[in-house]
């Protein structure tokens, strides 16, 4: 695609790209099958930088008022707003980090800006072959907040209902939820909105249905997914939460695993792929020497090897060979450093690439050296915390 395309069509391309990445995991017609489900749900991919939505059901689009293009590629945070309960946001964030299910009431906002409460029920979907989280499926069930318990007296009446009764001008005491006619202002001010038992059941049912479709279509494609982790994650596969954290770092870098034979790349940032012109699948599992070529100084390579053996950081200037269209070479100011995990032992090496031509200092920006080191720092924080997951 040429770079002169209009922004609108560039955006469509990005949507198609993400949807394509999603479909590739499953057999044909997966999207059509999911489209047939009546529920509101989204599917996200933690392995794409930004943890974006890669599928949104027609029910979701109807509920929120957005078009497909406006939703695909966005993170779920996009539907939250200033009055969304911080605790609920944290619950969801932690469930993602710990790769476990969660069911929580949360206030979201439609495209029009109007708020609504819904029961958010999310589950991880695991790949059967490698045990990693492939997607997160999130179901949204709108809730009306009229959970009245049998025989509860007036004094136990929950606030929202009270307000609603005042709104509607009559005292109501019934089991079924009334349609929400309340002032939206008030919806935002509710501390919490408990889902009814039937709403909770609806969410469980919906999750089950989506998972069934995914399982069936993954089976056809020969790469089964399921709702429970069936095997321990393989050694060279990073947890989804670590990948999400690393995805926040916008510079070019790789993580290699010194404990695996030939120290392969286990993570490569999008910026690395852009810089070097390689695709992710061409890079993962390979040793970084694919970037070196005929004119790469072997003494520099030796210096790097020594530092790795000693477990020391180092910065070198090395000639690299790209896989870009023009197959050009570039001078890479490469910084490598060992990175420890929660056990205190070295788990990875991080390599941060900086194209030498970019070394010019921009007056209002961080020094390039600082920026390069900030990548190392961000990786250290991510790696150290990623192993400290509560079981």
């Amino acid at each position: 695609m040429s770079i002169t395309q209009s922004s609108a069509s560039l955006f469509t391309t990005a949507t198609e790209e993400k949807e394509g990445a999603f479909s590739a995991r499953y057999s044909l017609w997966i999207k059509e099958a999911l489209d047939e489900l009546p529920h509101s749900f989204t599917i996200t991919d933690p392995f794409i930088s930004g943890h974006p939505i890669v599928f949104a059901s027609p029910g979701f689009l109807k509920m929120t008022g957005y078009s497909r293009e406006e939703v695909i590629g966005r993170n779920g945070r996009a539907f939250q707003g200033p009055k969304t309960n911080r605790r609920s946001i944290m619950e969801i964030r932690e469930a993602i980090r710990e790769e476990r299910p969660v069911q929580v009431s949360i206030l979201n906002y439609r495209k029009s800006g109007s708020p609504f409460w819904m029961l958010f029920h999310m589950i991880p979907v695991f790949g059967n072959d490698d045990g990693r989280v492939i997607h997160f499926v999130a179901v949204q069930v709108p809730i009306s907040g009229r959970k009245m318990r049998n025989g509860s007296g007036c004094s136990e009446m929950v606030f929202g209902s009270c307000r609603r009764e005042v709104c509607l001008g009559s005292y109501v005491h019934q089991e079924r939820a009334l349609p929400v006619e309340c002032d939206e202002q008030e919806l935002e001010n509710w501390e919490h909105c408990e889902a009814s038992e039937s709403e909770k059941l609806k969410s469980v049912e919906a999750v089950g249905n989506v998972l069934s479709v995914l399982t069936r279509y993954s089976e056809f494609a020969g790469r089964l997914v399921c709702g429970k982790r069936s095997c321990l994650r393989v050694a060279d596969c990073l947890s989804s939460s670590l990948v999400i954290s690393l995805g926040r770092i916008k510079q070019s870098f790789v993580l290699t695993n010194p404990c695996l034979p030939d120290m392969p790349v286990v993570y490569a940032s999008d910026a690395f792929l852009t810089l070097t012109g390689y695709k992710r699948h061409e890079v993962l599992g390979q040793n970084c020497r694919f970037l070196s070529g005929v004119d790469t100084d072997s003494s520099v390579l030796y210096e790097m090897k020594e530092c790795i053996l000693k477990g020391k950081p180092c910065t070198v200037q090395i000639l690299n060979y790209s896989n870009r269209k023009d197959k050009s070479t570039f001078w890479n100011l490469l910084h490598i450093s060992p990175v420890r995990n929660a056990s205190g032992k070295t788990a990875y090496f991080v390599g941060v690439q900086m194209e030498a031509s970019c070394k010019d200092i921009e007056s209002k920006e961080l020094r390039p050296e600082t920026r390069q080191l900030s990548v190392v720092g961000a990786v250290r924080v991510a790696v150290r915390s990623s192993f400290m997951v509560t079981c």
Partner: protein
Amino acid sequence: MLKIKRVPTVVSNYQKDEASDESVGCGRNCLGACCLNGARLPLYSCKKLEKSGTGEKLVISHEAREPPVAFLESLVLGEWEDRFQRGLFRYDVTACETKVIPGKYGFVAQLNEGRHLKKRPTEFRVDKVLQSFDGNKFNFTKVGQEELLFQFEAGEDCDVQFFPCMPLDAENSPSVVAINVSPIEYGHVLLIPRVLDCLPQRIDHKSLLLALHMAAEAANPYFRLGYNSLGAFATINHLHFQAYYLAMPFPLEKAPSKKMITTVSGVKISELVNYPVRSLLFEGGNSMQDLSDTVSDACVCLQENNIPFNILISDSGRQIFLMPQCYAEKQALGEVSPELLETQVNPAVWEISGHMVLKRKEDYEGASEENAWRLLAEASLSEERFKEVNALIFEAIGCSNQEEELEGILVQPSGSVNQTGNRTLGGPIANGAASECLVLQ
């Protein structure tokens, strides 16, 4: 006069034994008048305060993704890594084993034998929260400039401004961010408001607001700021906050809360439920300044009533926990059990938040949620004392507490406090309980 002996944490490479003669001249490249001339540091000037609380936009923008590493975060991490590789820290904190203790709350334990000096303990007066600044003691004008990362100020512009090389000018009363050479975690820094003004360790409105700014600018819920008052295990009587990264929630942040009151300026105050240390949670507010001012008012009240306390600024500045405590007083009166004392864990802000640094292997191996709970419970005020303290605080911030937050629901007659709109009335809260979620297996 109540005193306890403890080994103070070394936060700067220039922090010597209290007993030794401190009248050394210079050549140390410190912040004293001797070395200040010609000193330069990057300056980060954060953007002007947003009008409404969090400044989040409702309109979906193309940037509504998992947010990238913010500029301030890059600055902190990049400069910290630089000092890390230059060997300025007393030990490599990432080489310290750490784990989450199994249990409901997930307390975090770290085995760190290097954090505590192997020298004799110093005496700390623990019965006075307000003490005047003593220039003879160690303070942050004595740190070497290499320990400083950058200057930080609350800007006037609607954009962030960054100046890579700005002179340190006493006339501007600069606030600085420095490394803590005995870090609890990677990225552990100190925020020192108006360092050259030599303010004692006490909360004032301007300084707390600066700390909130930093939390907001870092835009990372895993970057918290903490504060220890004197008597609540502050080591240095020179105004400072601490901050570091831990990419998981603190137990304190997970504790359920029960709303007590909402102030005129829209600040919601809750008390924590089912947590070993009785604490207040402040959030909301019509603006960040309102939130900051309310908490500052509460702190000033505690300070004036000689009640030691800790503060945790969390959720990128949206939540502020206030924890009054009495462990040091108990310790001085000999009321703490020897086994707890032997662990040498002082319940300061990070410990109370749920992050325990243990110096003995046996404590680390045997770390359990009950142990952690027991230690922290010792620091907590009793139920009655906490109620008394809350009453003092509410009076100080201008809300008389008319609610009965008993076992049940919060019932607040509308119009009892001067409110705009119906902000005080919450939505359906079954059992008056907190916002809890159903976690499925």
